[in-house]
């Protein structure tokens, strides 16, 4: 697949919110090298002014996602061997987000939408109450468990074409978190979550193209979580009709 090249040709996007361009670097190829290793090498040995973001380097923190040859990826867990085209790499800041500088995207819109989707904990008890019992085998808990390993890396947000075309759309990550909280017996925000995901930018804008599920590095399934939200919002209307 990949040729045993000594040197990688790496195009890196340089610039700010006002615009920018690709700049090419030659980076020594190494065994088991990750894309983040390549970016770090450039910053340490070629151009110390290169701006990028990372923290844990082991796929826990979700801060190092970038576009690699056009595809959103967590760069610390992405091997160069698997994604290089020949010996070339193109590394750009995450799609669908404003750029701060070089490879660092502004994550504010992404996290603002989590709050907008009511993807925040709505407590039902205080510290004086006994610890809530969680039935691990219940269907709701399993639906919640399926989505809670999200590391907020925004790969799904960058992969989604609905986000690209519709600036108000809350996006897969925020909606999936809303779905996990809706299924959490300790969360008391059910009605406000369903209201929040039913607005102009809500879950109903999703076209189930599945790029979120396709590219989630933790192999989560936001597309199905969003389908779950649609189902619950519809079910709520019929329930109201019956109760009225």
């Amino acid at each position, binding site marked *: 697949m990949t040729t045993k090249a000594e040197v990688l040709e790496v195009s890196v996007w340089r610039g700010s919110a006002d615009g920018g361009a690709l700049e090419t670097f030659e980076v020594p190829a190494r065994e088991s090298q990750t894309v983040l290793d390549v970016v770090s090498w450039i910053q340490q040995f070629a151009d110390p002014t290169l701006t990028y973001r990372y923290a844990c380097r082991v796929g826990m923190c979700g801060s190092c996602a970038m576009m690699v*040859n056009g595809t959103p990826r967590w760069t610390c867990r992405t091997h160069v061997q698997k994604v290089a*085209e020949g010996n070339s790499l193109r590394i750009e800041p995450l799609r669908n987000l404003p750029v701060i500088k070089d490879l660092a995207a502004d994550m504010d819109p992404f996290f603002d939408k989590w709050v907008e989707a009511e993807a925040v904990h709505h407590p039902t008890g205080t510290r004086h109450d006994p610890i809530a019992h969680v039935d691990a085998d219940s269907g709701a808990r399993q639906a919640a468990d399926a989505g809670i390993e999200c590391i907020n890396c925004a790969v799904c947000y960058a992969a989604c074409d609905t986000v690209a075309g519709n600036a108000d759309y809350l996006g897969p990550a925020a909606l999936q978190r809303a779905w996990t909280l809706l299924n959490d017996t300790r969360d008391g925000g059910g009605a406000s979550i369903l209201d929040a995901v039913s607005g102009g930018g809500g879950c109903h804008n999703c076209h189930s193209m599945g790029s979120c599920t396709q590219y989630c590095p933790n192999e989560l399934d936001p597309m199905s979580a969003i389908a779950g939200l649609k189902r619950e919002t519809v079910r709520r209307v019929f329930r109201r009709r019956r109760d009225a």
Partner: protein
Amino acid sequence: MIRPARTHPLWLAYLLHRVSGLALALFLPLHFWVLSKALTAPDELDAMLAFTDNPAVKLAEFGLVFLLAVHFFGGLRLLAMEWLPWSQGQKTAAAAALALAFFVSGTFFLKAI
């Protein structure tokens, strides 16, 4: 080989659903206009219907029936995914929708020629 962000089965199913829907919506005004001739100008309607004996027009009709069928079956898949309590196997379901659309429009085409 790297996979570009869009070329996966469900994205293609999304694009097919959108393009078929758009094409059908654009075709409808023509369809309605031709049929309304039945009231205002029956001779013109017959002249236009004779036009459908042309093999190229038959092929275009096959295309339209395919678009309708693929939008129909693809739409049923989406409705099932959103409203029924299961959502696994979507790639298989999308492929099945495409196959059924070919079957239906193929049946139409064989009757047409």
